C-alpha cells in the first residue's frame, strides 16, 4: 500500500523559542509496518506527525508516500488528499454527531451510496464492538468507547496510512492494555502502515514493529524493540528505554574499561577505535550481590563476571524486588535484587555483573 520516506525533514517554529522542532530527520517506514516515534516531551515527535499529516509545511526536506511526494518546503498536499487518517490524543470525536454519524462522515465525504455507507459503517462498528451504541452521542460514552469510535472513524475510509498521536494517554491502565491489543489487531487484519507517536516506551514496544527514538528534534536510533534495548547507540537511548545506570569510564584497550577504580571487560560489539572517556551502561536488574568467598578483588574475573565494591546508601522494599542504591566511590549505581536479599544501609557489598550486560556507548 504505502511506504513512507522522510528525507532531510526540518521544521522550526517562529517566535521566542525558535529552536528546530524537527531537525533534518531521515526515516524510511516500510509498507505495512508499525513505526513508533518515541521520546520525551518536546523531542519533535508530534511535530513530525503533524508534518506527516500535512497540517504543517516543512522548512526543508521531503515526505514521500509510495511514489508520491506529498510535502516539500514549497508545496504540501493538504490533509484531505493524503489518504492518511489520524487518531488524536483528544479523540476529537464530534460531540454533535452520533457514533454512527461520526464513523460515516469520511464515507459521506467520499460521496458513496447510502447503502454502501450503511454497510461499511455497520461493519466497522462491529469490528470495534460498538454496534449497540451506534445511535449514542459521544457525551454518553466512556473514554474507551470514544477512543474506539475514533479508531473506527479513522479506519473505515481505508486509509493508506494511520497516524496515531498518543492515542492511549488519556485512558486508564486496563483500557490502555485492551486498546493496545485492539490497535494491533486492526493492523494485523488490514495491513495498514501505521505511525504511532507515544512517550511511553512500553506502549511502543508492544504496538510497534520498529521504534524511532527521538531527542531534540533528531532521531537518536531506529530499530526493533530488541535492537534498541539490547544495543542502545547512546546513553540517552539506554536510559530512556528500560532504564539503565550510566557510569563514567575510560576505554583503556578494546573491550576493557576502567570504572570506579576497577578494570572491567565489556561487550565486544562496540567499535573501539575511540579510546578515552566513554559511558558504561548497566541495567539495574543485571547486577547481583557477589558470593562472599574471601576473594574480594574487584575487576574482571575468570568466571566471565565483573566485580565492583561499594556501600549501600539506601534500600527500598518493593514487594517483587528490592531496590538498592549503592555508592561505588565516584559514582552511584541502582540495582534490583530479589526481595529476600536484605543488606543493611551502610554495609559494604560486592556486586557481580556479567560481561554481556556491560555496554559501552560514546561518552556524553
Amino acid at each position: 500500500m504505502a511506504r513512507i520516506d522522510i528525507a532531510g525533514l526540518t521544521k522550526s517554529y517562529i517566535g521566542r523559542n525558535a529552536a528546530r522542532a524537527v531537525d533534518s530527520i531521515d526515516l524510511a517506514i516500510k509498507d505495512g509496518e508499525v513505526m513508533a516515534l518515541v521520546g520525551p516531551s518536546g523531542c519533535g515527535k508530534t511535530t513530525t506527525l503533524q508534518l506527516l499529516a500535512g497540517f504543517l509545511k516543512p522548512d526543508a526536506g521531503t515526505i514521500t508516500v509510495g511514489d508520491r511526494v506529498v510535502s516539500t518546503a514549497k508545496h504540501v498536499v493538504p490533509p484531505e488528499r493524503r489518504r492518511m487518517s489520524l487518531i488524536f490524543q483528544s479523540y476529537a470525536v464530534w460531540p454533535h454527531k452520533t457514533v454512527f454519524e461520526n464513523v460515516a462522515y469520511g464515507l459521506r465525504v467520499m460521496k458513496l451510496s447510502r447503502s454502501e455507507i450503511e454497510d461499511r459503517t455497520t461493519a466497522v462498528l462491529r469490528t470495534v464492538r460498538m454496534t449497540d451504541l451506534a445511535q449514542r452521542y459521544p457525551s454518553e460514552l466512556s473514554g474507551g468507547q470514544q477512543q474506539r469510535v475514533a479508531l473506527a472513524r479513522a479506519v473505515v475510509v481505508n486509509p493508506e496510512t494511520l497516524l496515531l498521536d498518543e492515542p492511549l494517554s488519556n485512558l486508564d491502565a486496563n483500557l490502555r492494555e485492551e486498546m493496545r491489543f485492539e490497535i494491533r489487531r486492526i493492523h494485523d487484519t488490514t495491513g495498514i502502515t501505521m505511525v504511532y507517536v507515544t512517550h511511553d516506551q512500553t506502549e511502543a514496544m508492544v504496538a510497534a514493529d520498529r521504534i524511532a527514538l527521538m531527542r531534540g528534534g533528531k532521531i537518536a536510533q531506529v530499530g526493533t524493540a530488541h535492537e534498541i534495548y539490547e544495543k542502545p547507540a547512546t546513553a540517552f537511548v539506554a536510559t530512556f528505554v528500560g532504564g539503565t545506570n550510566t557510569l563514567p569510564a575510560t576505554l583503556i584497550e578494546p573491550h576493557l574499561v576502567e570504572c570506579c577504580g576497577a578494570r572491567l571487560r565489556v561487550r565486544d560489539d562496540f567499535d573501539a577505535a575511540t579510546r578515552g572517556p566513554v559511558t558504561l551502561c548497566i541495567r539495574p536488574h543485571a547486577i547481583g550481590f557477589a558470593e562472599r568467598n574471601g576473594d574480594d578483588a574487584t575487576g574482571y574475573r575468570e568466571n566471565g563476571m565483573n566485580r565492583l565494591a561499594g556501600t549501600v546508601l539506601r534500600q527500598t522494599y518493593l514487594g517483587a524486588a528490592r531496590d538498592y542504591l549503592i555508592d561505588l566511590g565516584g559514582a552511584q549505581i541502582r540495582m534490583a535484587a530479589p526481595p529476600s536479599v536484605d543488606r543493611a544501609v551502610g554495609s559494604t557489598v560486592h556486586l557481580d555483573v556479567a560481561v554481556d550486560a556491560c555496554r559501552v556507548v560514546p561518552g556524553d
Partner: protein
Amino acid sequence: MAATATAPRPVERSGSFDIGPVFFIGAIVVLAILVIVPIGWLLLISVQVPDAGGLTLGNYVEAFSKSIYLRPIINSFVLATSVATIAALLGTPLAWLIARTDLPGRKWLRALITAAFVTPSFIGAEAWILLAAPNSGWINRTIASFTHADHGPLNIFSLGGAIFVMALYNVPYTFTFVAGGLELLPVELEDASSTLGASAWRTMRSITLPLVMPAIVAGFIMSFLEAIAEFGTPAFLLIPARTQVVTTQLYLFFQFPVRTELAAAYAMPLLGVTLGLLLLQRRILGRRKFTVVGGKGGRRRLISLGAWRWPLLGFALLVPLCSVVLPYLALLATSLSRIWSTGPVPGNLTLYWYHWAIFDNAETRRAIFHSLTYGAAAATIATIIAFLIAYTANRRLFPGAQVLGIVCMAPFVVPGIVLAIGIYAAYSHPPLVLYGTAAILIIAFTTRFLPIAYSNLNTMVAAVNPDLENAARTLGATRLRALRTITAPLLRRGLLASWLLVFIPAIRELSSAIFLFTPRTATMTTQIFDFTDAGNYEAVATLAILILAITIVIVSVAYRFLGRDFMETTST
C-alpha cells in the same frame, strides 16, 4: 534550500479545485468594503478640497475656527460630562443596593434596569416629549391644572432635558459594571476591615468603594462615549431648542448643500476622543484584576438595611420609574389614543394607529419591512464575516491573520454618525454608487455592529479544539467542508446569539441610518424621525412600541433558547 528547489513537485491524487481560499479571500474583501474603505475615505476627504480633489487642511481650519461650529463642541462636552456624572452617581448606589443589601424587590429592580438597557434613548426622548413638553406634556398639564399657570414647569426641549433623558438610559452601564464588581468582591475583604473595628460606613468608604472604583470609572467612560456620539436624543430635544451639539451639527452639514469634507474634518475630534477613552477604559479594566483575587462564588451575607430599606427602595424605584415605567406607559397610551393630547380616556382609545401603521399606510408598512429585512441582512452578513475572520485569525491561516481581527473590531471606536459619513463618502460616487439603495444601509448596520458579532464569535472559535476540524480533514473534507459540517454546527448557539446581537441593535439604529436613507429606503427609525418633525406623535409612539415589542419578543425567545447570559458579551 537548494535541495528543495530541485525536489520533484508534489503529485496530487485528486484534481478537484479547492474553493476554500475563495471564501476566505471573499470574506477579507467584504471586510475591506465594510471597514477599511469607509474609514479610509473618512480620513481622506477630511483633507480634500471640496469637489476639486487636491489636499488641504482648509476643512479643519474652517471647522475649528468659526464660533458657530465651536459652540456645539462645548455643548457636547457639557452634555456628555453631565450625563456620565449623573449616570455614575445614580448607578453606583443602585448597584450596591441591589448586589449587596436586603433591599426588597431586588430581582424586579434588576429586570427593570435591564429593560432600560435595551431601550434606545431616542425612544425615551420621544416618550419624555409626551410627558414633559412645555405646553402639552402630560406631567406639565397635570401640574398646570393645579397651579392654574399657562404652562407647566418642565421643559424637555433644553440641554437640561436632554441631560436628564440620556442620564436615565446610561445608568445601566455603571450599574452593570459596579454590580459585577461587587458580586466578585470577596466578602472577607470587608470582614477584615470590620474585625479591625471599622464602622460599616468606614469600611464602605475605605475598602469597598476603592475596590470598585475602576468599574465606576469604566461605566463613566462608557456613558460619556454614548452621550457624545448620540444623535437621536439631541436631535429630538435640542434641535427644537436651537442648541446644537457635535452630532446635530454634523447632521446640519448634510442638509443642502451637503458639505461632506467639512463634516469629515469636524467628526475627527469625536473619533479621537472615542479612541482615546476606549484605550483608557481598557487599561483601567485591565488593572481591575486585583478586585477579583480570591473571588469565589460562595454564599455571601447581605447587608441589612433595617428601617432604611423602604426609603431606599423609593430611591431605587425612581430611576426605573423615569426610564421605563412612565415612558412605556406614555408611549402605550399615545399609541392607543386617536389624538394623544386628549389622553387615554374612553372614546379616544383605539387600535387605529396600529392598523394604520401595519396595514393602511404604505410608508410605515414599507419601513417596518425595511427595518426587519435590513436588520436580518446585516445580522447574517456580520455573523458570516465575523465567523470566517474569527476562524482565520484564530487558526492563523496565514502569517499576520490576527490583524484581520483588529480590523473587525475597528468600527467599535467609530461613532455611528462618523461611520455614516465615511460610508457616504465612500459609496456615493463611482466606482461603487450605493447611495439611495438598500445596500448602503445594510453596509452601515453590518459595519457598525460587526465588532459585537466578532468579539462574541472570537472567544467561541478559540474554544473549539482544532483537532475536531483536523479529524474531518484527514477523512477527506476540505477546510471549508470541515468548517461547514463540524465547526459551524458546534457553534450554532454562538452563531445564533451573534445574529441576534446584531439584529436587535440594527432594527433600532438611527444615527447612521439618518445620513444614508432616502424616502425609498426609509426604516422604522427614520420614520420616527420624520414623524417627530411633522408632530405626528401617535405614529411615533406606535412605531416605538412596535420596535420595543419586536425587541422584547426576540430577547425573551433568545433567553429561553440560548440562556440568560447570551447578551453579556455586549456589556464589555
